[in-house]
């Protein structure tokens, strides 16, 4: 789906991204982690051609981003920005969803059907003015407008920033379901709980260099790597690492409960044996 080959990019003389090479396959859910200023947003913008690499090659579904228009890449990618206000430009939620569709779906009936589907999926009132809605609702509107175009690759730049738990779960639930149906997701997030709950693979960026690439479970338990990238693991993996032997495999709340129960059982058996 997406391939980076020795990609370098800089806004000025210095490189913001240095020699990044990785590949994301169809249907993967990958998180991009790193401290502020590590180059995460820049790397995500390179994925759909908003930025062109100064050296190296980025290909999306086989198309070189340097030779194809970003608006053409947009026919099979969706990009959710941190700030939904930069995307919203219509007076109603329905109009906003329809606006994005006009560029990819020529049939009016098909457009209407897709817009209605999105309104239902996000439980949004199509007649409402997006500019009078809460930040979370605007973010949902922006995401609905993107998803209506049925992208094959979804690029999310901190989709849950500034959202409450309920809004965060609504958005991530929808994204997760889409991923289960085959949409590839590449997401930047500072929320390690969200990463632990939803992503399966993580890339770690530090100072523009890719310093880690692996399963989220491995990355979350690599203390040295996380320290280098100024990151803290999610709470359960952190607790599991602190408890050590017998608990270190626990990654989710359920797994931790299971590990604790097993430990208590072992202790009870040991006491009975004595």
């Amino acid at each position, binding site marked *: 789906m997406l391939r980076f080959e020795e990609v370098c990019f800089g806004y000025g003389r210095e490189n913001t991204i240095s020699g990044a090479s990785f590949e994301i396959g169809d249907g993967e859910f990958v998180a991009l982690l790193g401290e502020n200023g590590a180059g995460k947003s820049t790397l995500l*913008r390179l994925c*759909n051609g*908003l930025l062109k690499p100064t050296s190296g090659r980025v290909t999306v579904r086989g198309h070189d981003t340097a030779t194809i*228009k*970003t*608006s053409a890449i*947009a*026919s099979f*990618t*969706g*990009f959710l*920005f941190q*700030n939904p*206000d*930069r*995307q*919203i*430009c*219509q*007076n109603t939620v329905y109009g906003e969803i329809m*606006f*994005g569709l006009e*560029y*990819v779906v020529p049939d009016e009936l098909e457009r209407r059907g897709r817009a209605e589907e999105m309104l239902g999926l996000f439980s949004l009132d199509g007649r409402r003015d997006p*500019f009078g809605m809460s930040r979370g609702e605007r973010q949902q509107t922006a995401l609905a*407008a*993107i998803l209506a*175009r049925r992208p094959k690759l979804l690029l999310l730049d901190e989709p849950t920033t500034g959202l409450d738990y309920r809004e965060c779960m609504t958005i991530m639930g929808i994204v997760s379901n889409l991923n289960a149906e085959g949409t590839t997701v590449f997401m930047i997030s500072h929320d390690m709980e969200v990463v632990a709950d939803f992503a399966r693979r993580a890339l770690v960026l530090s100072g523009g260099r890719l310093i880690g690439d692996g399963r989220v479970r491995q990355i979350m338990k690599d203390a040295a790597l996380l320290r280098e990238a100024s990151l803290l693991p999610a709470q359960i993996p952190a607790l599991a690492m602190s408890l050590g032997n017998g608990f270190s495999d626990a990654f989710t709340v359920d797994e931790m409960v299971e590990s604790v129960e097993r430990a208590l059982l072992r202790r009870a058996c040991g006491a009975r044996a004595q």
Partner: protein
Amino acid sequence: MNGFLGYVNGSSPLHNLHPLTKMIMSVALCAPCFLSGNHLLILGIIALNLCLFASAGGAGRAITTLLSFVKFSAVLFVLQVLFIRDGTPIFTLPPGIVVTREGVMFSLLFVLRFMASTMPLALMLSVTPVGDISNVLVRNLRIPYKYAFVITTAVRFIPLFSEEMLGIMEAQTARGVEFDTKNFIKKIRLLVPLCVPLLVSSVRKIENSAISAELRGFNLRTRLSGYKQYSFGANDVLVIAACAAIIAFSASGILP
């Protein structure tokens, strides 16, 4: 701050001048464009601006700024040439539009004046922090703080709005709107719906700034409380003398 009106950090002699000197220099470089109708003099002023930009470490930016002015000026030039019919005809365009010598000379003067009179402002803002401009307006020019604040805030907001517009265009391109088209007319047509998000985000930013200023006691200010001192040096005297010479030369009528 990015954009052609933003401050560029540096320690060049121009950066180290008194802010008032830089403002005087900006006016003095503008004045000859209107005091004289000599094309060569105005071209000289543009060249001087470029040299000053380069001395302040902003040669690249000056050339970028000038190129964007040239593109805009080209459109202005063509329009002027087409609309001025008086004078000696040079040639006639197919629908019967007469291009005259006077029309070409006047249009050339018009666009040169436009470029030469805009560059000094960009130069001044690139070597002077907005805060210093505000301080000088209040301290040296005795402009009430509220008005100085309005002027400097307006200048400060221009690059922010420009950045915001680029961000909006980026967001729309990412959803398939063809801002990467080479068709200028199409691009302009696509820009119209983007005025809504730009207006909304601009009003939000301005409202937040106003609330923030109010909460920090902006309206309670009754006396000057700035501590930053600016001193006039030999360089300032030299620059002001040079400015006076430029104005005197252009107003003298030595050049036709």
